């Protein structure tokens, strides 16, 4: 293995680097060139203009509050859900998987719009409902605010955090907790002094991924932030390109460079904090039996809490979507609205050949892209966790590169790159672009999973005469199944609803769902948009079920 590793690392660095560096290099060129393309005369103007803006300070402050806040919400909730699900005897456990994944499937723009309908200060449904309570007649909870943005973005990033935390939680070595209890630690003390610290790599991974994601997020800042006149970097970048008809993506890239730098710094911080990964090896052959904590009296109250969360996370937005898809235009629920309900929007969508083509393309990209992406992620995560050289650090940073760039800019980077290849305007550009950009969705859960496979388990396979690939196939991959399933689900659902790259790269014949949804949104056709959105959720649900069933079939440990 020693020799093979030395080939694997550079090979992966070359591959991942090629995928992620090329668009970023194009953007760097673009940010230093005059004109609107990637190549022009050298200029620093775009940086000077971008960074001398007097408003930048306030925007950065907003961004920091928004990004930290939403990551805390996402990680905190994910931790709670993962803990309750994997470690306690809370009833109806199947609900957790659903709760954690559904927001993953809802296009972010729709999710944000649902929340506007629920909580806008004029006639948001929740506000209207609460105003009927005496004493609250003048209540106006305002979603168009920083807390509103933090809440919605936090909920949107929850699935990513959950899918990283749950497998780690599930394979936690119970003896570590037991020894704390033996030492006299109460359940809570054990949780805070042992369980959480031991899970630190997974928690940090979840938190940092949420940070990076919310930093690049555009849906929430534009749908909720802009009307509240709260600008963060993503919307600031949008403003800088959208003012005027000649959108200057080079300038946007120039501002985006600081976002990129921040993200990469975060990733290095994360690596530094978890550098002693051996400390956290938690699956060994002995400790692979997480025990269940009895909630006793708290069982149903805790479940009630989860119930409320799932109401907020799934039931409300999906109901709003369903409702919107059936009423002829945006209306407040009323007798009149219900009397006007019909399947009109659904029928229009089903009869639209481009919508059907986009459905087909998205399913293809979801299934095939996620499979390919997870395969690549297994190798990348392996090198990151098990090789841990400077080169593997480079690889980890590379895997985050295009992911860290603000979404609206990276698509243009890919276009500038792909137009120089024969793949331009084929579905392969989407496939490659998706995998390159969302590689962390596969790499993160797999890294968490890898960290927990003790190196002895692999080494003993080698001693038994198995080469690196047999070891990978028979020992490592089966033990990684929970991580693989998480990664596949994250990637597949992401690819099914991917918008930022698709909107730039899709051409006739390669239309995808999100682009179709985006067109509906541009035209303000919320009905068709919601109908297609629900179809999208159904497809994603099917993919998630598929992955879960396959994962259960190859469950690593027989009970």
């Amino acid at each position: 293995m020693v020799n093979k590793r030395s080939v694997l690392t550079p090979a992966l660095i070359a591959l991942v680097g090629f995928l992620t560096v090329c668009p970023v290099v194009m953007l760097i060129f673009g940010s230093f060139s005059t004109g609107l393309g990637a190549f022009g005369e050298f200029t620093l103007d775009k940086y000077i203009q971008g960074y001398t803006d007097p408003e930048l300070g306030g925007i950065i402050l907003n961004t920091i509050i928004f990004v930290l806040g939403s990551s805390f919400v996402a990680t905190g909730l994910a931790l709670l859900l993962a803990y309750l699900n994997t470690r306690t005897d809370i009833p109806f456990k199947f609900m957790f998987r659903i709760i954690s994944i559904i927001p993953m499937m809802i296009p972010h723009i729709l999710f944000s719009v649902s929340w506007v309908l629920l909580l806008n200060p004029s006639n948001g449904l929740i506000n209207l409902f609460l105003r009927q309570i005496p004493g609250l007649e003048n209540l106006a909870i305002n979603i168009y605010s920083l807390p509103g943005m933090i809440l919605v973005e936090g909920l949107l990033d929850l699935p990513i955090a959950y899918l990283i935390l749950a497998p780690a939680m599930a394979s936690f070595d119970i003896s570590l907790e037991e020894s704390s209890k033996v030492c006299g630690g109460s359940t809570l003390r054990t949780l805070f002094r042992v369980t959480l610290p031991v899970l630190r790599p997974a928690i940090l991974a979840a938190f940092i991924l949420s940070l990076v994601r919310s930093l690049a997020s555009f849906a929430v800042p534009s749908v909720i932030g802009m009307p509240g006149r709260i600008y963060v970097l993503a919307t600031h970048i949008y403003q800088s390109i959208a003012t005027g008809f000649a959108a200057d993506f080079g300038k946007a890239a120039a501002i985006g460079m600081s976002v990129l730098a921040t993200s990469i710094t975060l990733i290095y911080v994360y690596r530094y904090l978890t550098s002693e990964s051996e400390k956290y090896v938690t699956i060994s052959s002995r400790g692979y039996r997480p025990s269940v904590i009895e909630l006793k009296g708290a069982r149903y109250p805790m479940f009630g809490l989860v119930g409320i969360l799932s109401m907020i996370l799934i039931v409300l937005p999906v109901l709003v979507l369903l409702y919107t898809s059936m009423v002829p235009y945006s209306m407040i629920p009323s007798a009149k609205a219900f009397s006007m309900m019909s399947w009109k929007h659904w029928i229009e969508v089903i009869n639209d050949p481009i919508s059907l083509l986009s459905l087909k393309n998205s399913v293809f990209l979801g299934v095939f892209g996620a499979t390919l992406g997870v395969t690549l992620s297994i190798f990348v995560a392996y090198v990151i966790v098990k090789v841990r050289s400077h080169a593997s650090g480079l690889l980890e940073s590379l895997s985050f590169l295009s992911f860290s760039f603000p979404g609206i800019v990276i698509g243009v980077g890919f276009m500038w790159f792909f137009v120089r290849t024969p793949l331009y305007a084929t579905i392969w550009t989407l496939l490659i672009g998706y995998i390159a950009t969302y590689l962390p969705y596969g790499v993160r859960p797999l890294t968490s999973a890898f960290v927990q496979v003790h190196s002895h388990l692999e080494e003993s396979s080698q001693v038994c005469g198995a080469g690196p690939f047999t070891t990978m196939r028979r020992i490592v991959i089966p033990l990684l199944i929970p991580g693989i399933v998480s990664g596949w689900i994250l990637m597949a659902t992401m690819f099914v609803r991917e918008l930022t790259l698709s909107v730039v790269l899709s051409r006739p014949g390669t239309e995808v769902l999100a682009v179709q949804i985006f067109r509906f949104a541009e035209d303000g056709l919320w009905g068709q948009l919601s109908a297609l959105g629900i179809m999208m959720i159904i497809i994603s649900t099917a993919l998630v079920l598929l992955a879960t069933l396959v994962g259960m079939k190859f469950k690593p440990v027989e009970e």
Partner: protein
Amino acid sequence: MEIKITNLSKYYYSGGKTIKALDNVSLSIPANRIFTLLGPSGCGKTTLLRCIVGLEAPDTGEIKIGEDTVLSTEENIFVPTENRGLGMVFQTYAIWPHMDVFNNVAYPLQTRKVPKDVIRSKVEKTLRFVQLEGFEDRPATKLSGGQQQRVALARALVAEPKVILFDEPLSNLDAKLREETRKDLRIFLTELQITAIYVTHDRIEALSLSDIVAVMNGGQIVEMGEPRDIYLNSNHRFVADFIGRTNLIEAKVTAQEESVTKVDCAIGSFACRKRADLNPGDNVTLCLRPEFIRLKRGGASEAQNVFNGQIESLVFIGEAFEGEIKIRESQIFIKTEPDSDIRVGDSANFAVDPDHCLLVIR
């Protein structure tokens, strides 16, 4: 199968410093014997084992297993672990939690593409050998620690390797089970006529299990020999100290006589086992094992190798008394017959046979 290691070095770099995990180690491990690498943690014993297995790549050196060179940095040979045909039991056992007992044990045969029926019969035979008959279908995670340990052993043995390696395999077992397993293991290995390399930091394990013990420190092998020989005839202060409870007293050589070497030290002058390599005036360490310090009733205290001391503490442990005596400023551990009638506070004479007064260096 004999294993020959020549000039093996392995360095680690950490924080700008070079740590010599193995410092130019050369040794020959005889065939079909139980060979133990004993030493404190960080002495390089596990690194040496992992180099033999091929899980670590040394910086320089050569390793030959039988006639095959599996590693030679000079000739640029590195046979990967999977092609070295060895068996190994890991400290954590490394039982694969996603497989049942049968598949865990069958794995080495499966990787070698052995026919299915042969696999079945060999696995059954091996499981019988380690007394786990009928456990084939158990999930590996549903076994006790001792059972897992035996599964790991069965897996290491099933492909009939010429060499089997153990990396502290008993350290996760409780004391009683450890003792039993140690005994069983010695019987298994002796019966199999197999070269076994065993790594441990536990001296009792090393002494009771091995045919040959090599004591390691600071990436080097300090002494190597049969257990009794190492224990009774340690040449080095480190070995004498590590391999058993002992009193180490700084001393100076006063004279070389025909059959003994004479030294002076803080508790008197002693005639010791002859060590020809010393000269009068040399600084040495006198090593007195507590069990060889005998209570001397009556008699003159000026006799050779006799010293008088006051008993400071005394613990009755059944098969013996263990205690400390005070002689001038020094404290000496003793271990004496359980029927002695000594008490704390008593003053008594103690004597040591010159043959048990060991002079060690460094």
